[in-house]
């Protein structure tokens, strides 16, 4: 009996333990996405206004996450679109007017300090703790997690788009034995994806000389808004610094910058005529048409050129790719690609539904949902979580998708951050204007001196000490400068 009694008690204890373990197990098994959905159900019936870059980006919330979220929670998603260069303005206008026009914001990471300091963004730490999201945030690729999430230690957004400028090249031209032989004979080294800008120029000129005007060595992002990213990257890779760290005087007019400006102008001569006007679309279509052997651009080029998403209605505008079987992926010269732009998901401080907005972005940004989003052929979200790069399903989407994801992963490890300062758009505006003057034929040294003077004037207006703190904070990040 005693045994029976003991056994019964023991059995009860075992059952209790199993039940407790099962409950604990089910709690820990519940993902961040599930937690967001459960908590959001109490907001059923409301509509969230989600602010997105116009174009393909909003197809994700319109066609995929929006309908799914509504089905799961009863919360409607209304997408409001804007051209990328007006997003900052419109976000600020809504904030200034106190209109509460937006609930969820897409924020360019280098504009996050401006928006946060202006009070336009809601701090997210309390929500992150309340809904247990810290663990999954840690799984975002370090370069994005550590640099595109916080301002002065506070979380204001979740990195949500692994933008990085990658080199795409035609393997058929690079692997051609005749080309290899002739190139080595001329330059004394192997024809391979360029490691330096000198090699880039050698290869480009070689291909243009041999195949032009049918095929040019390269075609690049040269519209000032795009070209400024490549300049920022190249300037730092070659050893340039934006400011003197002590005096905060602009050093953008250094000899390094003058040399790079001169090299950029020289490169245009062996690139397709009119390359100065090329933006994303022009470079992309020329690469797909096989008109250029190399280009440096954002990740969608790599997957669309490989034919990924072919037949998708939203991508009908993309020209037929002629390089699907020959596309190669590499880091751009210097090996430190620019993490150009990107997006973080934030909650507008003026939102009337902050909690629901937060839960939506936690759900979108979670391991589970983000993996689906970065594989949407029509959307522009690029891999940004460590798990995205290693996902077997993604790696099997086209024959060398693994190479593509490996290069993106390398880019995410070595990428250089866009310069981020108070009123960064004004500094970038000066840079954009400088590049447009460069294409117009002005003297590089004069342009850079004018640019430096403009930057100094801006810094003085904002406050040297105030700006210095922000710059120092940025410059001390491991991915601000190459060394």
């Amino acid at each position, binding site marked *: 009996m005693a045994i029976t009694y003991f056994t019964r008690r023991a059995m009860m204890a075992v059952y209790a333990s199993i039940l407790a373990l099962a409950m604990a197990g089910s709690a820990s098994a519940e993902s961040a996405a599930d937690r967001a959905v459960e908590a959001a159900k109490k907001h059923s019936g409301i509509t969230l206004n989600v602010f997105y870059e116009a174009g393909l980006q909003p197809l994700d919330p319109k066609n995929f996450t929006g309908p799914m979220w509504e089905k799961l929670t009863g919360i409607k998603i209304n997408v409001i679109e804007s051209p990328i260069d007006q997003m*900052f*303005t419109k976000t*600020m*206008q809504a904030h*200034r007017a106190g209109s509460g026009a937006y609930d969820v914001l897409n924020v360019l990471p280098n504009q996050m300090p*401006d928006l946060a*300091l*202006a009070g336009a963004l809601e701090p997210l730490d309390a929500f992150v703790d309340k809904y247990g999201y810290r663990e999954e945030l840690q799984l975002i690729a370090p370069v994005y997690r550590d640099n595109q999430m916080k301002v002065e230690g506070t979380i204001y957004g979740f990195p949500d788009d692994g933008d990085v400028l990658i080199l795409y090249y035609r393997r058929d031209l690079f692997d051609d034995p005749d080309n290899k032989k002739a190139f080595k004979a001329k330059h004394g080294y192997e024809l391979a994806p360029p490691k330096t800008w000198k090699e880039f120029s050698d290869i480009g000129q070689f291909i243009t000389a041999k195949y032009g005007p049918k095929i040019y060595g390269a075609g690049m992002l040269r519209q*000032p808004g795009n070209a400024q990213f490549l300049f920022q990257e190249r300037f730092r890779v070659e050893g340039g610094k934006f400011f003197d760290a002590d005096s905060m005087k602009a050093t953008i007019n250094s000899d390094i910058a003058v040399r790079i400006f001169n090299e950029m102008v020289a490169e245009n001569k062996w690139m*397709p*005529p*009119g390359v*100065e*006007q090329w933006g994303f679309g*022009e470079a992309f279509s020329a690469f797909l048409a096989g008109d250029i052997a190399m280009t440096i651009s954002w990740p969608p080029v790599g997957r669309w050129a490989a034919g990924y998403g072919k037949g998708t209605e939203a991508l009908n505008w993309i020209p037929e790719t002629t390089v699907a079987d020959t596309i190669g992926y590499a880091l751009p010269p210097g090996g430190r690609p620019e993490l150009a732009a990107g997006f973080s998901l934030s909650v507008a401080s003026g939102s009337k539904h902050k909690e629901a907005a937060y839960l939506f972005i936690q759900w979108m940004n979670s391991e589970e949902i983000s993996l689906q989003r970065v594989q949407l052929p029509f959307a522009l979200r690029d891999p940004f979580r460590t798990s995205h790069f290693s996902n077997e399903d993604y790696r099997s989407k086209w024959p060398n998708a693994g190479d593509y994801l490996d290069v993106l992963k390398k880019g995410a490890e070595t990428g250089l951050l866009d310069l981020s300062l*108070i*009123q960064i*758009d*004004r500094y970038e*505006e000066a840079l*954009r*204007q*400088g590049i*447009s*003057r460069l*294409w*117009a*034929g*002005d003297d590089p040294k004069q*342009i850079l001196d004018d640019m430096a003077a403009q930057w100094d004037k801006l810094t003085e207006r904002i406050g040297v000490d105030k700006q210095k703190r922000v710059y120092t904070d940025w410059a001390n990040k491991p991915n601000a400068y190459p060394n």
Partner: protein
Amino acid sequence: MSSAISKTIDSERVFKYLLIAPAVFVILLIGLYPLIKLIVTSFQNISMFDNDLSYQGFINYERLLDDDRLWKSLLHTIIFTAIALPIELVLGYLLALLFLEKLPFKQTLVAIILLPTIISPIVAGSIWRLMLDQRFGPINQIIAWFAGGDVRLLWTVETALVWPAILIAEVWQWTPFMFLLLLAALSNVDKEQLEAAQIDGASWWMTFRRIVLPAIMPVMFIAVLIRALDLFRVFDVIWTMTQGGPGTFTETISIYAYQMAFREFEISYSSAIAFLVIFLLTVTVVWALRRVEVSR
């Protein structure tokens, strides 16, 4: 008796004022309030990070004086207006003269000529940007065809070409407006006077100066005034084609004010710029109206 009459007149006058008072109030609210708000803001310090509503004196107006970029943009605006306006006027007049004659499909042709004015200036700018594109644009292809080889004309990039490109787009879009008004004015010129002048052996110039010009002057003045104001505020076409570039080479006063207000959030400073523009335009319009009055 007379005081009773004057009392009746006074009460009638008061009643009339009362009747129009709501309309005057609404007009003042719509027209005057923004102007007062603009002036008040220009004496404050509102920017991206500052929201100081206290009186700051003339600090923003002093800043105007030191702002080279502002004066350059104003100069660009004045020069552009001074070049575009006569071209539109002359072309519009010549077209109107052509259409005074009997032409086959006249109504259809007039409708076709007027099409550009119906298009939004943003769309017109986009059309011309594409037309002048090096890779896809037909203009360079046509020029290359005539030149017998490849041409490299970067219309929206090179300083030598960028203003002509904008001028072409602007003249293309707004000459029909001049044409329409001048056609209406020319249609009303007294034909008997013209015939009399012809019989008297007056030269073409004399007829134009003594008969045609005085007859079309009121309409032409209004057309020129409207277009001059539009040109002074030109924004959309330039923004679409060059965004004020290369550098600030095609930046007009409207583009600069927009940059300051909506890209750099210098709200108070941009209010000062806007007030400067309003002041300059008001002075110009009042001066022009007086000149017309005097000439009458």
